[in-house]
């Protein structure tokens, strides 16, 4: 909904209000933001949290070329041509990132990976990849966030600190809302935080369990045992987990007694010792609890559209991330086809990095190898990854300059409402152009 205020103070100031804009900064994907845009600048972001405000208000369109080749300004056409050449010349091309792009662009990226017999991977492989693998082992009992708001009377956060990572999680979805079957909001809910340290989120908890670092798996299995009324040795439980058996027993009694329990889990669980075994234990515990009451689990996903990336890669290839096409059809093997591995093992010989910054956060061997191969980078800002790229595109910012679709962390697709213009092409446009050229090259072979 775009309205221009007829009483704009001066002719120069163009003022518009964009209602129900969508924030893509974290997995909450809040779609209720009211933006005030003055002279193509966002000046207010009503209802956004501190992270969301920063996302919208700090948005600047930098005056720089949309395309650099070897760090030198080039036309985008030259960039598209060279990008297609690099990707089709290689023997082991990789495409990585995707989580900060709308589904429309993600679909193009997966398409390119397919045409070039390349490997496609997303940032899922470095955040909730283990949850994805656990899911393949045991499944998942889950729900959309509105179900939590309307029914959840016991909310557990495990290895997740939404107060800092997803600031509106509590107020919008999980703790505060007055829902259909929890009419008194927070009063009708018990909040439990399980973590290895006292996070900011722990302040909101009715019950806080501080377990020993790297002992999530043991703690989860303690609960699984208690769910089945299996007797455990109190001394051993305390020694292993750092928490008294009686505390676990009390928690289990409450879990069995609640009407609709929810466990949100984060990277404190998936990226610590045990990884997918931890996620699997948590998903299995949730499933076990359905023998007593209704219980669901949900990963608290981070980046705006990482959930969309999982979905797009899955529907086009059948697998969620780490997909290799070198035989002409998709194969899946995390640990082999995931980007940190294809780089650190010095297998990839060219690539494309989309809205991600491996040069800043991958291991040193991976970074060194990436720096040594020709690759293309797409980003809204200058990063270590764009700086070392053979071809770097400055792209418009999704959700601010461009529309498209983003999946909330509960797989609900939400449309974007762009609010101001950018001189740069969208990632969708760049990838569409590269795909066209790649296809032409492939067809001519």
């Amino acid at each position, binding site marked *: 909904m775009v309205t221009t205020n007829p009483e704009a103070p001066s002719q120069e100031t163009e003022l518009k209000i964009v209602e129900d804009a969508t924030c893509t900064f974290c997995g909450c994907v809040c779609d209720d933001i009211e933006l005030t845009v003055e002279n193509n600048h966002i000046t207010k972001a009503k209802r956004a949290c501190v992270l969301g405000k920063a996302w919208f208000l700090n948005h600047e369109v930098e005056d720089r070329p949309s395309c650099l080749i070897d760090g030198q300004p080039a036309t985008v056409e030259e960039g598209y041509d060279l990008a297609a050449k690099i990707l089709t010349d290689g023997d082991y091309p990789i495409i990585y990132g995707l989580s900060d792009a709308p589904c429309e662009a993600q679909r193009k990226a997966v398409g390119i990976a397919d045409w070039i017999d390349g490997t496609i991977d997303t940032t899922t492989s470095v955040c909730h990849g283990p949850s994805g693998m656990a899911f393949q082992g045991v499944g998942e009992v889950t729900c959309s966030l509105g179900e939590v708001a309307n*029914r959840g009377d016991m909310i557990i956060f495990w290895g997740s600190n939404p107060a800092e990572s997803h600031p509106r999680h509590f107020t919008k979805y999980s703790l505060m809302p007055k829902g259909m079957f929890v009419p008194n909001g927070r009063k009708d809910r018990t909040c439990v935080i399980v973590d290895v340290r006292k996070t900011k989120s722990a302040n909101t908890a009715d019950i806080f369990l501080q377990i020993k670092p790297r002992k999530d798996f043991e703690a989860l299995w303690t609960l699984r045992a208690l769910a089945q009324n299996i007797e455990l040795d109190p001394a051993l439980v305390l020694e292993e987990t750092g928490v008294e058996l009686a505390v676990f027993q009390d928690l289990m009694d409450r879990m069995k007694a609640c009407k609709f329990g929810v466990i949100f889990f984060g990277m404190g669980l998936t990226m610590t010792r045990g990884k997918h075994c931890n996620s699997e234990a948590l998903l299995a515990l949730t499933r076990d609890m359905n023998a007593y009451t209704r219980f669901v689990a949900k990963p608290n996903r981070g980046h705006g559209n990482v959930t969309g990336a999982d979905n797009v890669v899955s529907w086009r290839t059948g697998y969620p991330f780490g997909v290799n096409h070198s035989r*002409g059809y998709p194969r899946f093997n995390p640990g082999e086809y995931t980007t940190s591995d294809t780089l650190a093992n010095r297998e990839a010989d060219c690539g494309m990095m989309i809205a991600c910054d491996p040069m800043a956060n991958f291991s040193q061997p991976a970074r060194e190898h990436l720096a040594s191969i020709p690759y293309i980078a797409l980003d809204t800002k200058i990063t270590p990854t764009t700086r070392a790229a053979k071809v770097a595109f400055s792209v418009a910012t999704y959700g601010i300059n461009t529309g498209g679709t983003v999946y909330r962390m509960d*797989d609900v697709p939400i449309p974007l409402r762009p609010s101001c213009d950018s001189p740069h092409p969208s990632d969708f446009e760049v990838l569409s152009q590269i795909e066209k050229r790649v296809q032409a090259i492939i067809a001519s072979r």
Partner: protein
Amino acid sequence: MSDYIKIAGGTIHDPANDIDGAVRDIWISGGKIVNPPEDPSVKPSRTIDAHGLVVMPGGIDMHCHIAGPKVNVARKMRPEEKRKAEVIERTAITHSGTMGSVPSTFATGYKYAGLGYTTAFDAAIPPLGARHAHEEFDDTPCLDKGFYVLMGNNHYVMRSIQQNEPQKLKAFIAWLLRSAKGFAPKLVNPGGVEVWKHKQAGNVHGLDSEVDHFRVTPRQIVSQVTQAANELGLPHPVHIHCNNLGMPGNWETTLETMKALNGHKGHLTHIQFHSYGGGDGDEDTFNSKVTQLADYVNTHDNITVDVGQVLFGETTSMTGDGPLGYFLSNVYGGKWFSGDTEMEAGCGITPIKYKNKSLVHALQWAIGLEWYLQVEDPWRVVMSTDHPNGGSFLAYPQIIRYLMDRQYRKDVIKTCHPRVKDRCTLGDIEREYTLNEIAIITRAGPARILGLKNKGHLAPGADADITVYTPHENKETMFELPRLVIKDGQIIVDQGDIRHPIQGKTLHIEPEYDTGVEADIQEWFEEFYSIRWRNYPVDASYLHESEVVPGR
């Protein structure tokens, strides 16, 4: 050069136009079937020699699960199955993909087309996931596509029934279908999924058990949604997955559901799963009640069914019926997905395996075939496997052989659990389908039931969606590899090779309704949904190519 294409001298099976094996030419222009040009000097730009070949309209799958949230979850969940399945390699013009019981999107489009199918409907999309389904449709080539919108457990539906507000109900159904850009209302275990959401192992157990909180019964939901949808004049008024799917003794619920239509048009889906006698979960009492139910269908022409045929082998069960998913996951003990969608729907997914040596499974297989053979009017029974629930759509040629070849049927019964023969009538049925009857249950019939006037037949004005088969004594062989498949007047498949993977269009409806009710819907929506009212409806940008199908 004209833009005419002529299919010359084929043996035509076009039951909607009473053509049963006559040799005729078919002219195509602008993607449509047309009359031959009046000026005899006008020559076609291309002539396809179809002498000795069988020509039918393109196949229509009216009930399958090929797109959207739960299908994609099932893909993510089953890598073990894909790795050992047939591979779909990329070519210069087609994408790669994976198979298994839940193929990736491109693979789905290519495989349907390869089988001579040109239209398919996903049977269960929660409106909150409608956008997702449309995005996947855009990546599913070669087919015209649409979906049914889950509403049998929708809170507004139940609330307007409880408050006795039929006008609100009617407006809501139309509003919801338009918002989702969907094709038809779908009821899945009406009322039961809502009970599952708030109670351990919750469900309703018959047409008259009450849904707590909403204080309505499944019977009320079935009757009133059916009536409202018929009054709206929808092309396919209502598509019903009955309560108690898979349970011994459920045939009585099914019969009651048929009665609850009150004479209005209604379609009962995967009827095979709802036709069981017996009780108390005792395998020994499980038996077929097809005869009783088919009798009712035969004497009530407001009712149509599709079968939901079970085939032996491994597959994935996926359903909007959350409590059923829980039940099946306990039976099979494998991995289990359950996903509840706020205000609207549920979902259950679990891997399953049908074995011919299991009495229950073999009976399910036999009961499906009984349905095809006991409904007298082929226009009211449609081929389906409820893909992938009973088996893959790729099994359609095999089912055709079962129907056209009674000896083959009898040979397979012999390999099944020995007591199957006593629990159903299949062994005694001598009926064999004709080619024309096959054309009815796979294209002409579903087109008519769906209200698709331009599909399922070959008269001028129809979409030029045409399949050409090479006749063969073994009907499975004949139907598994069409000679040619034409979609919108273009050859998309030639002897199994994808030649021209066109996009296909989305079929949806835009029923008129009393917009005065919108304010009430909005008030309800804003109180309980986690997304904004304005961000809920799917806008036209998601449709790409599309067609609005008019009402009846």
